[in-house]
């Protein structure tokens, strides 16, 4: 029943996206094409990042098992390009803040889902061998959805001209956390030697915390006028 397992993984990964799209009311605004455009921007940004990383970052030639903190930190810094990409998408869409955020985040996250999950599922989950990592990948994509929504919201807030002074610092901190979240996760796994399920849990908690903070700031900002 391995095709069934493939179906399980795909539904676990994709359905939340579907539900979010339906329930956030984006369908009423004919936003599908805009989401696809956001996805295309994602592809372009990833391509640029890859070229940049390949050109300027040498391969790590140290001992196996030793984690190259500085190198990985520099690589994570390149992820700032993600922020630029999101900003680009949002600036091209006219509309309310929420609309822009949701469109950008949905398109971005869906593109990431298709690009990074489809092939592992098709090849791996469909095989005879069973492994828990496919279910874990599906959960991970759910977490990514929330993460990208939070990231888009923070980027939007950062670029607002009417952002109160007191909000600058928290927003910047959240922005930094969003970009370096991957790096922090790898750090935790390496230092505390977390198992795969524990790492997933930590990731979920971290993303939850970031998104709650950003939501809090967003609400305050929008309704302070």
């Amino acid at each position, binding site marked *: 029943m391995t095709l069934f397992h493939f179906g*399980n993984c795909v539904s676990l990964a994709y359905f*939340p996206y579907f539900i979010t*799209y339906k329930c956030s009311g984006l369908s009423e605004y004919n936003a599908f*094409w805009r989401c696809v455009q956001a996805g295309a921007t994602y592809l372009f940004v990833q391509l640029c990042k890859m070229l940049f990383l390949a050109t300027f970052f040498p391969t790590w030639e140290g001992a196996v098992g030793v984690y190259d903190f500085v190198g990985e930190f520099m690589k994570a810094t390149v992820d700032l390009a993600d922020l630029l990409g999101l900003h680009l998408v949002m600036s091209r869409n006219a509309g309310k803040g929420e609309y822009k955020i949701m469109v950008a985040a949905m398109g971005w996250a869906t593109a990431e889902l298709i690009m990074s999950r489809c*092939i592992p599922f098709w090849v791996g989950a469909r*095989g005879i*061998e069973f492994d828990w990592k496919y279910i874990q990948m599906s959960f991970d994509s759910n977490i990514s959805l929330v993460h990208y929504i939070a990231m888009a919201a923070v980027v939007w807030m950062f670029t607002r001209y009417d952002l109160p002074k007191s909000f600058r610092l928290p927003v910047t901190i959240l922005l930094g956390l969003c970009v370096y979240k991957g790096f922090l996760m790898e750090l935790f796994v390496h230092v505390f030697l977390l198992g795969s399920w524990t790492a997933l849990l930590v990731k979920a908690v971290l993303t939850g915390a970031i998104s709650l903070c950003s*939501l809090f700031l967003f609400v305050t900002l929008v*309704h302070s006028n």
Partner: protein
Amino acid sequence: MFEEASEVLENMLKWSLPLSLVLFLVLLRAEAAHEFSVYRMQQYDLQGQTYGSRNAILNTEARTVEAEVLSRRCVMMRLADFSYEKYQKALQQSAGAVVIILPQNMSTMPQDIVQQFMELEPELLATETIVPVYFALEDEELLSIYTQTQISSSSQGSSSAAEVLLHTATANGFQMVTSGAQSKAVSDWAITSLEGRLTGAGEDLPTIVLVAHYDSFGVAPWLSYGADSNGSGVAILLELARLFSRLYSYKRSHAGYNLLFFLSGGGKFNYQGTKRWLEDNLDHTDSSLLQDNVAFVLCLDTLGNSDNLYLHVSKPPKEGSPQHILLKELETVVAHQHPELKFSMVHKKINLADDTLAWEHERFGIRRLPAFTLSHLESHRSPARHSIMDKRPHVDLTKLSRNTKVIAETLARVIYNLTEKGVSGDLEIFTEQMQVQEDQLASLLDWLTAQPRAAQLLDKDSSIVHTLEYYLNHYLKDVKRHLVRADKRDPEFVFYDQLKQTMNAYRVKPAIFDLLLAFCIASYLGVLYLAIQNFGLLYSFLRRVTSPRVKQH
């Protein structure tokens, strides 16, 4: 949403469809939990009679013998727990396959288990079965797979229905899959034999023939190393070739006998090489050493151990004949030079009604050539002659070199007529520069046992045949190859392929597990749906939390 989706997708699909088709058509193999080599049990036809395991392909779940239901499953057994009853049980329940796990190093196994397995090997082969039987060498991962399977197999017959249900839903099973096709007969297999000679000084001389078969036999062809049977025979033959070629190279020691050395192939399959060689030499050739004066034929079979020595004959030698002289010389040499050796003659009549002949000398006996077989085994049915356990440690080098010396001294006494000339039995010829070189024997034996020498694996281009030919060429003259191919219409022997395959063990979960998982995922998605629907609640809560602050401005 679907209308816009469809229109967008239509545009995209026009150029992406070919790309996605290519992508999805590539069915990449998932990685297995463990991949290992398995060696199949013998499968051959001899004179129309089929032996061994018929089938080769496999794609079944793994179980151990303790499980209740064994049909269409792959039954795994370890050598330490192996018994004939368990094997029979697996076969009777028409198991999908049997995999017997052997330890990497046989010397770690206690002797009685090894002995018991050696005795069981012919019985395993005697029952012709359609169930593929494999042998695998144990490593850590295979052992862990075995223990996991054992735990789940033995708990199947236990406790309550709920526990069983939970267990079947979450258990970790293994699916064993072999790559490779169904086994089929190998057509046109050539069994190679090698002969070489040392010509005596003079004309119309009698001939002494020395024979040893170089192939080995065991329950699995790829695991038959045949150290004692008949690696020892081959090593002795080659060492004798070296010693006598040295003797014959000096004019003064050039004896009045022709020496013909013969390394026969297919020995374990009823001496096919010898049979065809005799037919060709006696029926089809005008003149051959075998047609003229043959003093006797001495076959060497399993001489690498023990302090016993038996001379097997099919007809007791008559007084005054060259055969009788050999017998007497052997007794003399043993009595005077090696008193610890127990030597005796064993007389066994040739029984043509048997499926296979007992010893190699019987082939010569059928063609009215006087022949003996020298062996440390008393019976041809001894399990040591057909076992995969027969590896290098089974051969005792000192005893092998002592046996070589005994044979060399005896032959020298015969060809130089030493007893008639009154030379005492204590005189040792092969000493100092002419001595039997133990290092040579050791390296020959090490080389012979480094790879399996089953007849199915040695075709005429194999490295073993080439090396033997090269070695014989070094010491003997007129080294020739002799090929035996099975007759097309009524084959005496048929070999089958697919003797070595790769087996993959995949970790699988039972089907109920997928349903259980689907149920859990459905409930998770339901909860998520409700959460997203009611997201507005969280939003208004946060709003209420922040608004008192705003009102204060």
